[in-house]
């Protein structure tokens, strides 16, 4: 018997060792590119253009980043912050209210809900051209307002759909009691629904922010020079023959840090958000 359980024990240990090995392989595959980007952002020109490649930069010199600030390129990260931030706030407020209405009053029935959801799935390239024509007409090209409005509208279906799910999960009894006690609808919304939906709002807002932050196509088409966002700026460093490697890497890192920071801060809200976001729309 002990020989048999010993064999079983050994087998379990071997499986566990294999699993750790597989995880290690995955970590290398998925994280090495991130490491490489980071390492190039710290390398000197000599280290970047070395063959064979230099695997570890000799020092953490910040020159590549300082150049971005000195040349004014770093302002594109600020533009991304303004447009993604403002549009997220807008989409969360407007979308949250709409979601409450859909969840509690079934406003517009299934037709409205489906229409909103289908807006989410229309490919951006099919929308971007008509939107461009509209923006030229209104003079909204290359303005904060234009990009904020677009990102907010683009994120609305997601926010509405996910928040509708969250609100439906909140017990309705408290709201009923408050109404009986003489609260107005707005008071109910502000004092009872908002606190209970807060976790959902945070998760939804983070994803809306990331979607807007990572967008390239809309920013490419709807901006010129004034509100260029950081992904568009990154592509400016690609050349036909040679690329501005140091700038590509430093700008990419600069543009990725805010997202990582936000994801780390809000991590505990996110797993539910991502599964809700995907499964529920």
């Amino acid at each position, binding site marked *: 018997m002990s020989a048999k359980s010993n064999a079983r024990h050994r087998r379990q240990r071997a499986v566990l060792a294999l699993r750790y090995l597989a995880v290690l392989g995955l*970590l290398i595959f998925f994280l090495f590119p*991130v490491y490489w980007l980071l390492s190039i952002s710290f390398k000197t020109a000599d280290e970047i253009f070395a063959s*064979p490649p230099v695997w570890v930069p000799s020092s953490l010199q910040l020159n590549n980043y300082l150049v971005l600030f000195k040349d004014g390129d770093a302002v594109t990260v600020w533009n991304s912050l303004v447009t993604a931030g403002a549009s997220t706030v807008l989409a969360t407020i407007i979308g949250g209210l709409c979601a409450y209405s859909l969840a509690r009053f079934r406003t517009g029935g299934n037709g409205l809900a489906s229409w909103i959801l289908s807006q989410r799935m229309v*490919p951006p*390239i099919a929308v971007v051209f008509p939107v461009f024509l509209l923006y030229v007409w209104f003079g909204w090209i290359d303005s904060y307002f234009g990009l904020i409005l677009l990102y907010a509208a683009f994120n609305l279906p997601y926010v509405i759909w996910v928040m509708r799910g969250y609100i439906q999960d909140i017990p309705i009894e408290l709201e*009923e009691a408050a109404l009986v006690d003489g609260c107005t609808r707005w008071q109910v919304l502000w004092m009872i629904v908002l606190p209970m939906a807060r976790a959902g709002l945070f998760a939804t807002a983070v994803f809306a922010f990331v979607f807007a932050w990572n967008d390239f196509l809309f920013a490419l088409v709807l901006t010129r020079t004034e509100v260029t966002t950081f992904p568009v700026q990154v592509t400016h460093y690609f050349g036909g023959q040679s*690329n501005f490697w140091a700038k590509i890497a430093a700008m*990419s890192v600069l543009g990725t840090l805010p997202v990582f920071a936000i994801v780390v801060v809000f991590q505990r809200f996110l797993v539910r958000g991502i599964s809700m976001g995907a499964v529920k*729309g």
Partner: protein
Amino acid sequence: MTLPDHAPVRHKRKRQAFPLVLVGPAVFMLLLVGLFPLIYSVIVSFQGLTMTDEDTSFQGIANYAQLFHDQRLWESIFHTVLITVIALPLELVFGLMMALLLLEPIRGRQVFVALLVLPTMISPIVAGATWRLLFDNHFGPLNQIIGWIAGHPTPLLWTVVPDLVYPSILICEIWQWTPFMFLLLLAALSGVDRSAGEAAEIDGASYWQRLWHIELPSIAPVMTVAILIRALDLARVFDVVWALTKGGPGTMTETVSIYAYVQGFQQFETSYTAAISFLIIALLSVLVAAAVRKVEFVR
């Protein structure tokens, strides 16, 4: 669940307006940025507008007829389908394997999951740029590593040579989005009721039998939605290809999104691009309709 009707009477009229007031701003915004431009571009698509020619006369279906003779357009659609049908199954299978690997308790699991999901959070443009740096034939580390394995220098031109451009795009795409599949499937698998699997184990069912007959059917709805979401994403693929090859060499990796962009914003074929937009919407509407129904069903 809807609110019952026993709120104070003085709110009676307000209550009917209230739900509409809440929905109003959202619907207005979606109409302004979603529907209104579409209607406007329906009109444009029947005209003859280009950058230099302000021809607003009615052209009939000329632009739509042109779609069928546009070989470059259909090639770009083929490229998009090609990327989708290769990337999607691989992302699904790899994502599932990763989810199964990390489903059972393992020390450090939370940290591993958080680290493995990083690529999905990165902007697709940055992902493309990163892989462009990795793929570089002189200074990139990838050829160096391949050289070590092969035993001799291998200066492969990843994003340039026809044979390698698609593998480059696919590697980058799979690198970025497999973690997304992984996270969804891990969440779904964690929610599967363990008792059925444990009962089957006692009855002598093997790991694979349990996976095939119990766990996979339980997560099938989530899998379907994940596949539809990724299919819709891949059908619009733009950023990664733009960063890696810009659709080149020539038009070899031009996806339909890139082609529409080139027509609209580099060739300034205003009316024709509007027609392309509607072709894309028509082609994808089946997929969109399926996705909307599935997502509602899962809810």
